[in-house]
């Protein structure tokens, strides 16, 4: 029973952390272009800088 005093807040806190992270990414526009995000891994960075 005593373990619950720590475990339940930890479980809830971790869950809330996930929720907060999701809201943060939503506000930063990370969900605005889902199909584009999937394609962007194929985009090569431009190699124009002088060597």
């Amino acid at each position, binding site marked *: 029973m005593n373990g619950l005093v720590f475990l339940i807040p930890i479980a809830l806190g971790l869950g809330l952390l996930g929720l907060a992270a999701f809201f943060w990414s*939503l506000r930063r526009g990370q969900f605005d272009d889902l*199909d*584009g995000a999937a394609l962007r891994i194929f*985009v090569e960075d431009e190699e124009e800088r002088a060597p």
Partner: protein
Amino acid sequence: MTATALIERDFAVPDIRCAGCIAKLEQGLVRDRRIAAARVNFTEKRVHLSCLPEAEMPDLVGAFASLGFEAHPVDNAPGEADPGAANTRELLRAVAVAGFAMMNIMLLSVSVWSGAAGATRDLFHWLSAMIALPTIAYAGRPFFRSAWRALRHRQTNMNVPISIGVLLASALSLYETATHGPHAYFDGAVMLLFFLLCGRWLDSVMRDRARGGVTALLRNMGTGAMVVGADGGSRWVDATALEPGMVMLVAAGERLAADGVVVAGESRFDLSLLTGESAPVAAHVDDRVHAGTLNLDAPIRVRVTAAGADTAIADIARLMGEAAQGKSRYVRIADRAARLYAPAVHALALLAFAGWMIAGAGWHHSLLIAVAVLIITCPCALGLAVPAAQIVAAGELMRVGVLIKDGSALERLAEVDAALIDKTGTLTLGRPVALDLDRLDYRTKALLLALAQVSRHPLSEALRRDLTARDIEPEPVEKVREIPGFGIEASWQGRAVSLGRPDRDLTGSALAAQLSIDGEKVATVHFADQLRPDARSAIDALRAEGLDAMILSGDRAEAVAPVARTLGLTAQTGMSPQDKLAAIARQAALGRKVLMIGDGLNDGPALAAGHASMAPGSASDAGKNAADCIFLGDRLMPVVQALRMARRTQAIVRQNFALAIGYNIIAVPLAFMGHVTPLVAALAMSGSSLMVVGNAMRLKRAAR
């Protein structure tokens, strides 16, 4: 770093198809020193630019063109958020909150179900309540709001039983918790919200996608014009800023942004989007020309007489507004089901309460059973039954090139039993196609392509499209220059070649271009609008689906007759927008549900009035705004595919309803007997939702 403020502009670029396009655009655009940053949104097929103030609209569009992309400016009034996207985001937030709460409460509930008792159970119930109550207050708002609105108008919809169920369940669970009772339904209530919110969110995502696709296509109204200033110089003026009295320079191939009177030059105009007339109409000095029509031949100057809401289009817009009111009376299938379902559910719950009271169970026990009945019958699966099927169908249709604006469009499309079809631009391609290319030799065609590809004139574009489709390689030519009002001149192997308007106008209205070498006429190419390649088979397929089809055209009878004969359809010709509306009203009075297919401004009111409507991607803005679905590309077959898909979707939706009702037939007696504990409710709810979603997935790949 420059100190000047940057201007933010959005462009719709429909041709973004792959990762290569993203890279090409983002890296290519910033090479123009006036463009500071470019960001592609692939989902919405848009590009967001930050550019210097001196970058004029035509320059920016030119920058896209030099990379090989067609771009259309999109008005984005700053600070005015897209209401649809905001709604989706709110729903997504609610889904996230409900999902988080559901998982945590479930965690606590599992311990209660596995035998936690006494103080531990009370603690877990209190914790559940602390998570559930704020969640229900936050995530339940969309349902409560809609239910309240319906109740205030003395109606009922799906949200009424949902709201009552959730609120009663939470209130009773709170009472149970406070009195150390064994059963709390917090998990059930939150889970119900989570599943239903998923359904709502899917529905909203689908609408957003289609709307994004439609805005990317809106472009036919010129969104501005080069205006001649007092000093003789010209500058770009947005369509919204055009005022009567201004003089616009309209290049060949450009669409007019406002109504006006020709003050200099003469040309021919393509009115097909405005009236359905397929033959071009000549315009001389002092002739009136209308917004939305396409200048075909030569650059002219037009003095603006009416802009924006005052243009000839405004009349059509008013008719459209009136016609659309009929459609708003349509009741979605889920709400129709709710009209039967909600009273039944509430009657059952009341009956359970009364029954157990009479049996002498005490009001607390009776209420507990009544709430169990409410929760178990709460239309969890019903709430998902419709959106799950519709979003799968819309996704599949998008893959074959049909954009569905919303779920109700799919429902209405499934019900149609007659089709009225416009001719110009709908049965036909609505653009000039080169007719006699095949009798020319390869070198002539190569030379034609070499000259045509430097010009943006509609006929040049038609030549370029048709010749590239035949795998012709252009001949190398030098010293190419475009002569406004005539055509293109160049030097080829030391000889002067030209492509331009024929020496004498053949019959006045026919479109043609002539290729000359050293002043000698070599070839004349004629152009005409053509039937879509699969028009015949698509019309046959429509008939096979049991639809009576008929042509409604604004064009002359002589122009419509050959089309009607080829397709074996009856036709009404020379129709004004009002006539088309009346034709639809006549059919509706006979009890038929009309599918209107059309593209022009003149079809706008009819598209708005039809029980369901479709427009091709090449349609006028008004047409695309009014239509329920838009099909892309040159083929007409997507119309039939959409119809079949809509009917299959409706069948799946009905199966889903049957599944949900079947599940209730088993579950309700259990609830009545008092056997539905929170554990049973949770299992039943997720089980039925999974079943319904699984059934909807069967629509995947059905369009192919």
